[in-house]
Structures are given as structure tokens and as C-alpha cells.
């Protein structure tokens, strides 16, 4: 009984729904494999053309970066921002509001379930890429150990931030503009397109001040052994701070949003 029972049942529900969409799930997963693969190929070509390395990344280090990036993306991605507007316009949020449970639970389990389902395919892809691109990285043991909590925190921060942003749908019908702006920023500032250390200094500062670096790039940097112990601890602290702030915002924005929703028509 209790919340664990809800999570277990929601997992079954999501799993059963996903099985119905095998083909789409497969295509989305391929997309998540292809994106880092394309950056990997491009950056490898750049590195080769400029004498074997760019900004401290050799060809095999780029391979390591983007393969780890692929796995981190797999763990951290969410689609809540695409979903919320639909939920509000089509009234499914009304049903969610009338249930004696906070809707964030459903979305969280939904998200985790889908990742567990596609994980085997991801691991297979990563293995193939490792064999083909022969990445090199040798993190110190402590960094490898801290990678796991850093990864989980990265997911938590990203989920909470994006869930909160998704709530903009309560106030505006231009959600796709909000989403677009956010995704462009995330593409550059979270290190998905290039390692943050290759960006201009000002963008690096922005990435560290905003939550972007802590949502994706940080665990990758950690596992690649590019951070010293002090930087690692600062990173974990930043993640913790963003998570706390994010949860606070989520609560506040959710309440305000629901108030608007129940004032102007559900």
C-alpha cells in the first residue's frame, strides 16, 4: 500500500502502454543515439584536421565524451514540457487534479519506466560505439564513485526544472516558444553539442550559474576525470542547491498555476 504501490502500478501501466508503441519507442531511442553520434563524428573530424586535438580533447577523448554523454542523456531526458499543454487543453489534467495524489508522481514514474524499457538498447549502442571508436578515459576511483549520485542528482534537477517550466502552460498558450527557447539554451549550455570547456568563457559562466551544466554536463566531466576533488564537491553542492530551489519553485508555481486553472476554467 501507499506511494510505493502507486509507483509499482504506474510502472505496469506505463510499461503496458509502451509495449503498444514499440516502433515509436525504437525510433526515439535511435534518435537519442544518433544525436551524440553526429557530434562525435563532427568533432573527431575537427580534431583530426587540427593536428589530433581541439581544446584538450583528442579524437578518442571526444569519443569518450559523447558516448558517456549519450548514456547521461538517456538517464536525464524528460518530455514533460511537450506534454503539459496537451494535458491542460484536453482536460486530462482535470482528472489528475481530482485524484488524491500529486500529478508529479505519475509523470516521474512514467519517465523512469520509459528509461528502464529503452536502457538495454542504449547499452547495446554504447557497447558498439565503444568497440568502433575506442574511447579513452581513466577517472580516479573516487570520481567514478561520485558519478552515480551526480547522475541521479542531474536527473532530479532536470526533471524538477522542466516540470516547473512545463507549468507555464497554465499562463500562456505559447508554450512551444518557451520550449524552443529552453531547448536551444540547453543544447549549448548543458554540453550536449560540445564540451563546455570549448565554449567562450562567458557562456561557461552562464552554464555554471544556470542549472544547465548540473543537469547533464557535470556527471560527464566527472566520469571523464576532468574535475579535481574540489570541483567535484562544488558541483554536487550546486546540484543539491538547484534541486532544493527547483522543488521550492515547483511547489510554488504549481499552486499558483492550479489557482489560475481553477479560476479561469478547467
Amino acid at each position: 500500500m501507499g506511494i510505493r504501490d502507486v509507483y509499482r502500478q504506474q510502472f505496469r501501466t506505463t510499461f503496458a502502454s509502451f509495449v503498444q508503441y514499440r516502433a515509436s519507442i525504437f525510433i526515439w531511442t535511435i534518435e537519442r543515439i544518433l544525436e551524440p553520434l553526429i557530434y562525435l563524428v563532427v568533432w573527431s573530424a575537427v580534431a583530426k584536421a587540427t593536428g589530433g586535438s581541439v581544446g584538450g580533447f583528442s579524437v578518442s577523448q571526444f569519443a569518450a565524451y559523447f558516448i558517456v554523454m549519450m548514456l547521461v542523456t538517456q538517464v536525464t531526458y524528460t518530455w514533460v514540457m511537450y506534454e503539459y499543454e496537451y494535458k491542460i487543453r484536453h482536460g486530462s489534467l482535470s482528472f489528475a487534479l481530482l485524484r488524491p495524489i500529486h500529478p508529479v508522481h505519475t509523470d516521474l514514474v512514467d519517465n523512469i519506466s520509459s528509461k528502464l524499457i529503452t536502457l538495454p538498447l542504449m547499452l547495446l549502442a554504447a557497447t558498439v560505439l565503444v568497440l568502433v571508436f575506442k574511447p579513452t578515459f581513466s577517472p580516479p576511483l573516487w570520481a567514478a564513485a561520485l558519478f552515480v549520485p551526480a547522475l541521479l542528482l542531474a536527473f532530479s534537477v532536470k526533471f524538477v526544472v522542466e516540470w516547473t517550466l512545463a507549468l507555464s502552460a497554465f499562463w500562456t498558450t505559447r508554450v512551444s516558444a518557451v520550449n524552443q527557447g529552453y531547448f536551444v539554451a540547453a543544447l549549448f549550455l548543458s554540453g550536449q553539442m560540445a564540451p563546455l570547456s570549448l565554449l567562450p568563457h562567458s557562456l561557461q559562466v552562464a552554464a555554471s550559474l544556470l542549472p544547465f551544466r548540473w543537469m547533464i554536463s557535470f556527471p560527464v566531466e566527472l566520469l571523464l576525470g576532468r574535475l579535481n576533488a574540489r570541483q567535484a564537491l562544488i558541483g554536487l553542492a550546486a546540484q543539491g542547491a538547484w534541486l532544493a530551489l527547483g522543488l521550492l519553485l515547483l511547489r510554488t508555481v504549481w499552486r499558483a498555476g492550479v489557482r489560475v486553472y481553477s479560476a479561469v476554467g478547467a
Partner: protein
Amino acid sequence: MEPSPSIQVKQLRKSFFVTERESGVGSALASLFRRRREEVVAVGGISFTLNPGEVVGFLGPNGAGKTTTLKMLSGLLQPTGGEVSVLGHVPWKREKAFLRQITLVMGQRNQLVWDIPAADSFELNRAIYRIPMADYKSAVQELTELLELGPLLRKPVRNLSLGERMKCELAAALLHRPRVVFLDEPTIGLDVTMQRRVRAFIAQYNQRFGATVLLTSHYMADVEALCRRVVVIHHGKLLFDGELAALRGQFTAHKTIVVKLEDGEADGALGRLGSYGEVISREEGSVTLRVPREDTPRVTGRILADLPVIDLTVEDPPIEEVIERVFAGGGS
């Protein structure tokens, strides 16, 4: 002692602000700078009380404020003014203890997960509403029997017909045995047989569990079969609250008399029948008259005395006609 009411509504009001503009490019540009906001009153101060176990029909034409009221009662909308209390709770606070005791079924929307069998959605509801396993099993069994769900529960919801889906929706919404049930057009789009099935089920559910039911429907057959009492609203105002029978009395000044005459007599008697009342229809061997309510006994007696009658029935006008009159008269 009077039982404490399940639902208490006092001077309930809800208004929305709607921005509006004329059509055309010029006014579209103008609206970028200056928006005209207009207050639209959806519910303008209505009051009523429902006692535990009552089944009440909530009637009104489209846009009367029915759904808005149901949404305020179930907690989806916060009232602009007035008071609502459902089972002693303020609905819009949506306390868990409140949500566990109510349900809202909207005939035009569904809560079941589309791609999986309803049985799986039921399990999810069991977990969310924290229904003890034994209660859950007996609830599923009972609902399966009452609604004849049997094989439907194992099919993906998207493969069900509209009626089958509605039955599953009802079951899913009632698994936690809510004490207050809000039904917004539960039979919309269903064929006659299925409507009857759903109707019978609602009556059975009400009898078995003593649940309070507030129901909106455009099918008067639903209302006649289920509700002794109706609350009628129009333009957000309460027009009538009382027994369905009294609604007829209050809003229709006429009854209809159907007279069956002996073969060959109908034609000859027609002219004379016209003098008893207004002839509204005429078929072979029978004539239907409309007569002022208070004249009915006298007219009936005269017809029976004067004409070769085989059969005569006095009827109230169909409820649809009554409702139409209510809305026509109560407008604006």
C-alpha cells in the same frame, strides 16, 4: 432528526473574464495594446441542498452553467462567490479525504488509459485511492456484474465501442465507492439500449450504496428514470427546484387527451371534438386533444358522454415539451 446534507450550495457564483475583439486585422492590432475584457457570469447565485442518497437531475440548456457548477462542486473550479460544502469539505481545497469520497464522470472525456486494458487502469486507481485489496476485489466483481463488463476488461480501451468504454469509465470512477457522484452527461452518444443499461446501473449503485448522485443529461429519459427531484438552471439562475411531477404542473397549463373512436366515427366526430379542445394530431380512429389542465375532468366527462368512445387516455405532455417551455419562459 434531519440528516446533515451531502451537498450544500448557497448563493454560488462563478464569473469569468473573457477578452474579446472584433474580427479583422485592424482590431487584431488594436487588441495587442488594449484588450477589452468582459465579465461573463456563468453561474449567478444559485442555492440548493442535496441529502444523502438523493438522485437529482440537474437540467438546463447548453451554456446554462451546469458543467461549471459541477466543476465547482467537485473542486476543479474555485467559486467567485457564495459557499459550497460537499460532505463537510470545501471542494476547491481538494483535500485528499474529500477526493477519496467523490467522483466526477464526464461523458465526453475519459480517464482510462487509452492503450491498455481497463483492468490495468483499475489497478492503478486501486493504488491511488488506497483501496484495500479485499474491498477492491469485491468492488470489481460487483461492478463487473452490474455493468456486464466481463470480457471488456481485458481488451485495450481503444478497441472498445463508445458504450463499452463508458461502462468501463463508470466502473473505474466508482471503484473507491464514492459517497457523492457527479455525472455530467453520462449517456451522451450512447444508443438507446446502452443508455438504458447505464441508467439502470446508476439506479442500482445509488440503492446499494446510498450514494448521493447529481446528474446532468440532455436525455429526459435519463432524468425520468432516475430522478424524482430536478434542479433546473438557465443563464446561471435557478429556475426550479422540486419534484419532477411538480415541474410539469408548474410549467404546463395543459394536458393531452387521446380519444379512440369507433370505426368510421372519427371523421364525423372530428368537428365536434374541436369544440372540446385544440386538436393537435389525428390518426386513423384516434384524435389527440390539448386541454387546459383545470378543464380536464370536465372535458373528459363530456367526451365520454357525447361520443362513441372506445378508449380515452389523459396524459401529461412529454417531459421534453415541459423542459422546452421552462427554458422558453425562463429565458433572460
